[in-house]
């Protein structure tokens, strides 16, 4: 492996600033890796020419002493972010051939910060999935395999292409979006760091909408320090998104410290779920011990409505999705399948354009919003959602952060958990509750299971307190010393 591919953003930025390497060199190394690992299917659209042009522009700015915070850093952009003049598909057939004429706010922020665009990363269709197996552009394969077994594993989802690209050292970082765990769960599955900030921290403008009261953008990186640096570039108020908050973006990166002395960390007892492998339970305990050894106080806490979070989510998210996806009617953009009249044209276009999981969720959403069921399902779910948010508010009066596993299982084989949608939904049991409450969370790679696969620990914090979340994550990262590469990555390219 080219040694440039092993660098963190922080390390690469230092070497770029010292002119030991050029942005062009760094980008070329990653473009080679992109080609070598094309079989992972991490990218839907590769943009090598744009990447080189952007890298050369970065070299120019570095030469003139005008480097921005992420100058010359090659990243992958989840194909849910609209990118001007680059196809944006949301992993759906209905957007095949769609080329935005505008740029999402968050991607524009990253280009302004000097990032180099390697391409658009694969994802579950409309970000609906936990294994990256629902994309119209094919499933993504994780760069990880079980020790002594070559069976292809899922990278998690929905930001599975981003996760695979960062884990396989194709991209130094990538963007994700997280509605119920779509950044944190794939980060855990691929041994990288993934962070969802507080709802309202990043603008949703120009990000293809799934469930608007839940969707948030966030960074996927290989270190906690890189996550702080990248989130800082992504976040900020945007007058084009009424739910983006007019709060100053703190200097998370500058203030980042692994000091957890005096912090109270809660262990929510309801996160001990049935059938969770013992090694995840053990890793969770080890994480608590690391933090205790570093000077934090560990407290058992209760979030009594935890078990209702997933069913609540699977009313609210599909309801919002059915409304958001109503725009795909084949008239102004996207796939149109002509039929005998207007209604049949809508119906044929949407039947041909949406895959099975998206159709399922749109149908569920339509049902729970329909006359006679609205109160029983949708309003009921909104009420339970308040109960879940209140659980967190009560606990955060007593503790500064929570420590949980990120996912209830290790990565599984492509094709597993496909027969039963509910079994797939259970992947997000630990990430969905905080999403419903809009709280910041991060997944940190913390160890390997018995088969040599990465497992993540999740840190959750108070609204707008990303700093504590990052600090606790850094303490975990230092204690865990996770340095294992996906198997086989040492050989090519």
């Amino acid at each position: 492996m080219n040694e440039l591919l092993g660098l963190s953003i922080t390390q690469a930025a230092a070497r770029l600033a010292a002119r030991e390497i050029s942005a062009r060199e760094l980008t070329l190394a990653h473009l080679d890796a992109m080609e070598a690992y094309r079989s992972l299917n991490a990218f839907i659209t590769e943009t090598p020419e744009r990447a080189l042009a952007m890298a050369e522009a970065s070299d120019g700015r570095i030469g003139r002493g005008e480097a921005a915070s992420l100058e010359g850093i090659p990243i992958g952009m989840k194909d849910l972010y609209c990118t001007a003049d680059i196809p944006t598909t949301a992993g759906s057939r209905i957007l095949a051939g769609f080329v935005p004429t505008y740029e999402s706010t968050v991607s524009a922020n990253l280009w302004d910060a000097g990032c180099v665009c390697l391409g658009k990363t694969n994802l579950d269709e409309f970000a609906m999935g936990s294994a990256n197996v629902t994309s119209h552009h094919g499933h993504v394969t994780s760069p990880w395999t079980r020790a002594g077994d070559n069976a292809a594993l899922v990278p998690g989802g929905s930001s599975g292409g981003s996760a695979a690209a960062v884990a396989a050292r194709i991209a130094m970082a990538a963007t994700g979006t997280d509605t119920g765990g779509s950044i944190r769960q794939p980060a855990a599955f691929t041994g990288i760091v993934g962070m969802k900030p507080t709802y309202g921290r990043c603008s949703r403008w120009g990000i293809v909408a799934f469930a608007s009261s839940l969707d948030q953008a966030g960074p996927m990186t290989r270190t906690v320090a890189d996550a702080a640096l990248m989130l800082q570039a992504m976040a900020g108020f945007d007058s084009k998104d009424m739910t983006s908050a007019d709060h100053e973006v703190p200097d998370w990166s500058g203030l980042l410290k692994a000091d957890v002395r005096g912090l109270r960390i809660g262990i929510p007892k309801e996160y001990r779920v049935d059938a969770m492998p013992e090694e995840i339970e053990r890793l969770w305990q080890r994480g608590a011990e690391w933090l205790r050894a570093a000077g934090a106080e560990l407290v058992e806490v209760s979030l009594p409505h935890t078990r209702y979070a997933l069913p609540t989510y699977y009313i609210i998210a599909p309801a919002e999705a059915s409304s958001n996806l109503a725009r795909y009617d084949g008239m102004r953009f996207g796939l149109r399948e002509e039929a005998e009249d207007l209604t049949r044209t809508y119906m044929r276009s949407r039947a041909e354009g949406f895959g099975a999981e998206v159709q399922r969720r749109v149908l569920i959403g339509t049902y729970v919003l329909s006359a006679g069921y609205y109160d029983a399902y949708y309003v009921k779910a909104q009420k339970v959602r308040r109960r879940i948010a209140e659980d967190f508010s009560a606990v955060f009066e007593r503790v500064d952060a929570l420590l949980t596993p990120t996912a209830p299982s290790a990565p599984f084989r492509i094709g597993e958990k496909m027969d039963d949608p509910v079994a797939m939904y259970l992947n997000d049991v630990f990430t969905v509750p905080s999403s419903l409450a809009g709280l910041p969370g991060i997944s940190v790679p913390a160890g390997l299971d018995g088969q040599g696969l990465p497992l993540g620990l999740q840190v959750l914090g108070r609204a707008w307190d990303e700093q504590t979340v990052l600090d606790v994550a850094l303490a975990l990262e230092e204690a865990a010393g996770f340095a294992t590469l996906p198997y086989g990555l040492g050989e090519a390219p």
Partner: protein
Amino acid sequence: MALDPSTVARIAELARIDVPEGERSRLALELSHILGWIEQLGEVDTDDVEPLRSVMAIERPWRPDVADDGERREDVLANAPKTHDGCFVVPRVIE
């Protein structure tokens, strides 16, 4: 709550998705399974609980009511399946 194939057909019509007759029974089973799982929410006491519509108390900012964007006809039409003379072309809407 178990859905039958005719209910699936009605929801599909509302959602404007063409679900062929042959797939309605399978979908009825799948959706019933999901809805059955969701129904455990009935156990939660939500009397006197206000529905949560937005997680953050975000103040709605005010701005002057002036257009600050527009004149983008080409951009708006750029991805249309069919256009004519600067307009979208759509199937007949009014009989």
